[in-house]
């Protein structure tokens, strides 16, 4: 059922300490019979297989340590965002096909994304980069892009540090709040902010794999309930997309153009776009792009011919195996409900899980924040309470099942 390899290629998997993605990549590697070497900033060396301690904040030194200790490998994979730059640096040193380090840096910084896309003519919101905490500069930038606008941290993801503002005073207040989020995240005071035009319209995400710049799409998710702000919790994701084929094709072309404009050429991408109505024409515009798979546990909603998972496709692609030109099984609709943190405090209980799991069409429910932990909603927090998964014959049934399951949950935070 899986694409087991004839030999056991050795693969370096870089796993950050705080990730949802470790188990799925390890499972994929096991199913493919790969010989793994792990680099991590959290895993303990226990005398089993190699675990190389690395510091993703110091990619140069960590890459030297890895190349000295890991031996020959056929591919290097970052399991999640914090390891992307280190993976690129290691790949350069080992002569493996990978994205250039500079391209990965471009993708990790929203201001650099905007600048590269502007230079390449990629459709996107009007934007201004504000280099300092000066409230006046933020107000001027917001006035330049028009209201409503969106103020963003350039280095965070998962909608953390993103706020919509309807007027100059709100824009300055949003910038202040985001500075505080950045300080909590350990980011430097000198980091710029992005102020951009708010684009109305439906939102979607496109996942795919690049091979020498050519994009093969693995999944397209509609995000039917993305809020209008002030915060932008991702909640409902449903695949396949309901968009007409020509609009979808234009969105995929835009995502591919955006990836290449950043210099990306290999491996997974996760692109987020909005579809605007311009004079009766549906036009895609880039919001963001990351040089990795879809985040959290969302990839578990996907399955491919032969029962392969997205992580298996990523590993196979990194090993130079062709990626089949097919997406998530188009005969079945699937979806995820990412449970946002509703308010700050200490999580006391998530009740109703059995009832939620029993809703017809629900295939999984995972709560990922332990009871007893402090939680913070967006724009301050960076975690979701958990994930609900569904599969059914139609998109509508998936959406209904996810919503009904969500409604069964009672979250207590005090």
């Amino acid at each position, binding site marked *: 059922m899986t694409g087991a390899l004839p030999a056991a290629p050795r693969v370096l998997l870089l796993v950050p300490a705080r990730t949802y993605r470790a188990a799925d990549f390890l499972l994929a590697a096991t199913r493919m019979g790969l010989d793994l070497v792990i680099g991590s900033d959290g895993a*303990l060396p226990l005398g089993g297989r190699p675990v190389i301690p690395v510091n993703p904040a110091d990619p140069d030194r960590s890459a030297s340590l890895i190349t000295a200790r890991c031996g020959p490998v056929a591919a290097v994979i970052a399991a999640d965002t914090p390891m992307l730059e280190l993976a690129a640096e290691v790949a350069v040193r080992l002569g493996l096909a990978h994205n250039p380090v500079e391209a990965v840096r471009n993708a990790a910084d929203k201001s650099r994304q905007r600048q590269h896309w502007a230079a390449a003519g990629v459709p996107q919101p009007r934007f201004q980069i504000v280099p300092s905490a000066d409230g006046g500069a933020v107000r001027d930038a917001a006035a330049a892009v028009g209201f409503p606008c969106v103020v963003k941290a350039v280095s965070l993801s*998962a909608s953390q540090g993103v706020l919509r503002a309807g007027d100059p005073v709100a824009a300055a207040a949003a910038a202040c709040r985001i500075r505080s989020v950045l300080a909590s995240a350990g980011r430097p005071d000198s980091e710029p902010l992005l102020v951009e035009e708010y684009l109305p319209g439906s939102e979607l995400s496109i996942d795919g794999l690049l091979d020498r710049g050519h994009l093969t799409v693995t999944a397209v998710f509609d995000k039917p309930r993305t809020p209008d702000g002030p915060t932008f919790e991702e909640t409902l994701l449903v695949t396949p997309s309901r968009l007409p084929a020509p609009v979808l094709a234009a969105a995929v072309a835009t995502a591919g153009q955006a990836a290449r404009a950043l210099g990306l050429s290999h491996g997974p991408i996760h692109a987020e776009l909005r579809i605007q109505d311009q004079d009766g024409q549906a036009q895609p515009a880039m919001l963001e792009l990351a040089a990795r798979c879809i985040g959290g546990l969302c990839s578990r909603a996907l399955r491919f011919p032969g029962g392969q998972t997205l992580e298996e496709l990523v590993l196979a692609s990194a090993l130079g195996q062709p990626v089949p030109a097919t997406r998530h099984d188009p005969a*079945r609709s699937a979806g995820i409900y990412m449970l946002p943190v509703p308010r700050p405090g200490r999580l006391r209980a998530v009740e109703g899980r059995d009832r939620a799991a029993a809703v017809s069409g629900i295939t999984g429910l995972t709560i990922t924040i332990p009871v007893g932990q402090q939680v913070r909603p967006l724009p301050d927090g960076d975690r979701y309470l958990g994930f609900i998964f569904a599969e059914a014959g139609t998109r509508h049934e998936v959406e209904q099942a996810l919503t009904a399951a969500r409604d069964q949950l009672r979250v207590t935070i005090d």
Partner: protein
Amino acid sequence: MSDLAAQVTAALGRSVLPSVIARGGAVRVVGADTHGVVTLEVAGSPGAVFPLASRIEAAIRAAVPRVTAVRLVAPGTGPSGSAAGPADSPAEAGLAAAARQLLDAEVNPAIAAHRGRVTVTGADQGWIRIRLEGGCQGCSLAEVTIRQGIEPLLRTRLPAVTGLIDTTDHEAGTDPFFSPEKR
């Protein structure tokens, strides 16, 4: 692949795999005998798959009426499940004890640095069942600790060990050393 195995594989893809993958596991057909007994091999997190056993059997028997029973096995044991002795035999008890001794001597002192502990809860046909506790329960790197650390160590030092089955309820962990974050 026999006709029955092919039908069960198709049924798995339609109605079982989504639930299993959503929980972080995987299953595949490794055997289907003439009496309609189907054997499925479990990969990934067995703790996430085995609780679904009755639902999986019901779904397969509903889709393929020729199926009379469904067995779940860990990787490597195959349809006969004969990698080592039967569960609870003296040999298995001895293997569990040896694993326990090795983990207490070489693994628990190390993972105590992350407030963690691993305990052996049993052995079955060469498979050691473990439970992670403390900082390891629900930790985002628990799978790395098991698959790169504990499992290869046990397999190297105790040749009768086929592999590990993690029976931990990771969702119930209240104090994981590393909590996952969405990036």
